């Protein structure tokens, strides 16, 4: 991400996401900034912070302060605090056998960002992916609150399968993913075939491989997308079987066009993920 203003927006959307995934409402935020103030133009920092503030305003969150240090590399993140009723906290691993899994954003931002570094991405796609990463998970979280949800997490650096593995670890469940139903950025599949895959995707695979089996029909490029580290990815929601179709329709009606049912949760203590 080269544009400092959008960098700020995406960082803020990413930081707010955890609160949404827990079913909460974010209220306040603190900036955490590292910046090479001696060698870099301060207007860049101002644009980053402005991006963050604008995204917080979208989310109805107040910036109440922060901390900054001098560093060689730019870093920007936020510490966010939110409210939730203690009985309504959504955990990651309180999965229920028979539930369906729903994903709200397409995968592939890590691969597309690698392709951007390689200068192989059209401006149009670059803009599309920037908007996707800067989109808050607020609307998805607001819609899912009306349904019977057992667990939820947000998909970020560990990729879809890494975060799903976190969900089933410590539960008595296993998961199945229908790879053909998983929403992906179409161009990302082409970039993956060309080897424009971030190192993080390989690390994610190596770390969770022992829990995961792929049917022989799942193409290698789709496997890469399932491990692709996401920046400000979507929510991964475990919803009761009977509510699943209604949840997906409600998400789509609410403007979350890529929302899709991608698999289900089964009763099995093996804690494994099977992808067909």
């Amino acid at each position: 991400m080269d544009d400092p203003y959008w960098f700020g927006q995406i960082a803020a959307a990413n930081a707010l996401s955890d609160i949404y995934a827990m079913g909460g409402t974010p209220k306040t935020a603190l900036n955490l900034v590292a910046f090479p103030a001696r060698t870099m133009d301060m207007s860049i920092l101002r644009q980053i912070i402005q991006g963050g503030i604008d995204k917080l305003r979208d989310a109805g969150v107040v910036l109440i302060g922060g901390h900054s240090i001098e560093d060689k590399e730019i870093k920007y993140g936020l510490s966010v605090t939110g409210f939730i009723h203690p009985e309504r906290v959504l955990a990651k691993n309180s999965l229920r056998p028979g539930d369906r899994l729903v994903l709200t954003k397409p995968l592939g931002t890590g691969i597309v960002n690698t392709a951007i570094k390689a200068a192989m991405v059209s401006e149009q796609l670059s803009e599309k992916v920037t908007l996707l990463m800067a989109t808050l998970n607020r609307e998805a979280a607001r819609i899912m609150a009306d349904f019977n949800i057992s667990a939820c997490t947000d998909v970020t650096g560990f990729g879809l399968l890494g975060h799903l593995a976190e969900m089933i670890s410590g539960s008595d469940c296993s998961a199945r993913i229908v790879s053909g139903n998983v929403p992906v950025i179409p161009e990302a599949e082409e970039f993956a075939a060309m080897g424009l895959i971030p190192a993080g995707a390989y690390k994610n695979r190596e770390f969770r491989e022992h829990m995961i089996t792929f049917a022989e029909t799942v193409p290698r490029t789709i496997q890469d997308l399932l491990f692709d580290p996401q920046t400000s990815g979507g929510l991964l929601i475990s919803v009761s079987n009977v509510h699943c179709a209604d949840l997906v329709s409600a998400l789509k009606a609410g403007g979350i066009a890529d929302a899709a049912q991608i698999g289900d949760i089964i009763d099995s203590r093996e804690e494994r993920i099977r992808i067909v």
Partner: protein
Amino acid sequence: MKEIDARGLACPLPVLQTKVALQEESYKTLKVIIDNAASQQNVQRFLESRGFQTALEHVGSDYAVIGSCDSMTLEQSRPVPKPFSDARKIMVMCATDRIGFGDDVLGIKLMVNFLRTLKEMGDELWRLVFVNNGVKLTTDGSEVLEDLKVYESEGLKILVCGTCLDHFNILEKKQVGETTNMLDIVTAMQLADKVINI
């Protein structure tokens, strides 16, 4: 042979260097030296997507990816290779242990004959699924049990409905195939090019 030293570079730079080298000149063989596993896999994939055959060598803690192609393969494999073979995928679903209505003795005989003749489909026979009364064909005493075992040993995937086995209380009697569920069956239908229901 063109040699590229991409050590000390992180993704996607090794792929980019390889790409630039190929743009400068259409090398027939080239060697890319890399010091991390992710870039090694990425360079290998990039070369394969450009129609190269690749081999990997370990040089100390580094990797050397060697790509080679002749102009024939280059022309043929420019587009991204298809993940699937060209053979059609036929799924056969048996919801009964006999074919048709009328005479049951004849119906059972026809089913045995049908399952034995299925092998004529060759490689295109991709999944054989048993549901409802059909699951009885996979249990002890089935006349086609040995035939199904041969299919399975030859690589055909046989799926047997777990709910159905449970319903008839014959879960333990199943001798061939994988116990399955409706999601797997629906997925198989989606992936198949043709579904035949019996």
